[in-house]
């Protein structure tokens, strides 16, 4: 559904990541499921797929990474109007698991916050491994984490070795999993395709269920245009995803 909307809050989280609060200006929007996403329309510029980092009372929180003209325009939009389409995707309700390890790369951390809050309501715990290229991309995840998520452990990795573990998120995740056998029964990886591919292969022998939050070109969000088909699989990110089990999209992960 299309909703007119307004930016009601902006915050620079780190060198490349910005938080935006968006108020929906018409009635009828339903609370999203974790990993459902929206398309943010910056008039005359672009339409950007965005994860939901939080939602309450018709207000959505998103985390924007500066990467192109569209995202820069959205970041610059401090108090203006925009369009919101959504919420799209099947979402993901992993409530049958006990403890989830969320492995994020860069801005792939965005859906973690909403998942963590919802998981807590369902009695499921979530821990975080977050990797970034440079330490200047980091912010303190706990500052956005709902206070209900007290028992959440946070592990940080930087590829420039300026903070936390020196290396990639997938390597750090692999290490903490081996140091804490049996602690997690579900892994969800979210971020660039390289990270998803590494998580699916590195952790395949851990016996933990492995899911990934995919990214690809999304144009319409409603399953009509077919741009987001995860070739060679008959699956649409916007309809059947964006979260898939590793083994269900092996061909797609290999191709990227």
């Amino acid at each position: 559904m299309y909703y007119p909307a307004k930016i009601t809050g902006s915050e620079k989280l780190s060198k490349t990541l910005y938080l935006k609060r968006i108020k929906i200006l018409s009635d009828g929007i339903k609370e999203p499921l974790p990993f459902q996403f929206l398309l943010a329309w910056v008039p005359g510029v672009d339409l950007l797929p965005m994860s939901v980092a939080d939602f309450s009372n018709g207000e959505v929180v998103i985390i924007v990474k500066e990467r192109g003209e569209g995202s820069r325009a959205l970041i610059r939009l401090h108090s203006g109007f925009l369009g919101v389409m959504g919420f799209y995707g099947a979402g993901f309700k992993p409530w049958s698991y006990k403890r989830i390890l969320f492995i994020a790369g860069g801005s792939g951390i965005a859906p973690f916050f909403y998942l963590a809050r919802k998981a807590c309501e369902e009695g499921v715990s979530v821990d975080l491994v977050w990797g970034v290229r440079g330490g200047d991309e980091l912010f303190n995840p706990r500052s956005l984490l709902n206070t209900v998520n007290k028992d959440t452990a946070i592990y940080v990795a930087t590829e420039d070795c300026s903070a936390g573990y020196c290396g990639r998120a997938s390597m750090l995740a692999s290490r903490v999993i081996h140091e804490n056998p049996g602690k997690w029964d579900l892994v969800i990886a979210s971020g660039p395709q390289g990270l998803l591919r590494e998580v699916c292969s590195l952790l395949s022998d851990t016996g933990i269920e492995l899911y990934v939050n995919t990214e690809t070109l999304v144009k319409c969000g409603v399953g009509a245009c077919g741009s987001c088909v995860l070739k060679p699989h008959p699956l649409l990110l916007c309809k059947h995803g964006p979260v898939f089990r590793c083994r269900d999209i092996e061909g797609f992960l290999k191709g990227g």
Partner: protein
Amino acid sequence: MLETSIAGLRLKHPVMNASGILGSEPEHLEILAKQGFSALVSKTITLNPREGYPPPIIVELRNNGLLNAVGLANPGARVIPVLARKARELSKPLILSIGGSSVEEFVKLAELASEAGVDAVELNLSCPHAEGYGLELGSDPMLVYRIVKDTVSVASLPVIAKLGLTDRVIESAGKALEAGVKALTLINTVKAMSIDVYTLKPVLSNKYGGLSGPPIHPIAVRVVYDVYREYRAEIIGVGGVSSWMDVAELMLAGARAVQVGTALIWNENIVDEILSGLHKWLIDLGYNSLMDLVGIAVM
């Protein structure tokens, strides 16, 4: 009980997908086949690849309609044999929708479709939002005649013309039949617009788009009725079908088959629901065959 035939294709039931929702890649056909359609209709394929318009290309409206201006995005003619192969693998008849901006382009595409062995072609003479394509051609009955005539002369398969809402749709339908189409698909989306009242701009990047979904269903019923009354032609009814009753109306107005597009977005079980509804309807009315009800409301 629900069997039908259209343009020489014998179908297990009357429900196929409408061109435009998915249908430009083999993976899309797999997704559509899972829905249970009796035949698959491709997205409109043009000779050369088309990027289509930049997003926003689709808007879900407050009135349960859908507005789109995708801009005939498709991979071009090279995908035709790929789609034909996939449809055979899925054991589904394939109706290839083709679009051109000239008579020659339609002719070339019809030749390629014949070579690839698809089951029929549907000429897109009705897309309302692509400059030089679709409705701009279909609103001129003499041009419809020329495109159909030349296409039919080279095609070794049934040719269907898809026409949209214009003041001269009955005339265009007559010319298409005169030039040799086996069936007509009626109607396409209806040219429309949506404006955001805070950003003060049309939402679609193309500004204009095609309206589909429940709001256009009564328009489709009217056009099917008028064309059937005039020519008793074979018609595929399309426009805003979201329940078995919508299908029943189109069939009573003269359609032998129907296409479903927008409703797929909200309801993955739409085909099964329609088929069981039609089945019960036939029993309630005491009919043995759906075909006996085609055009019964027309006098």
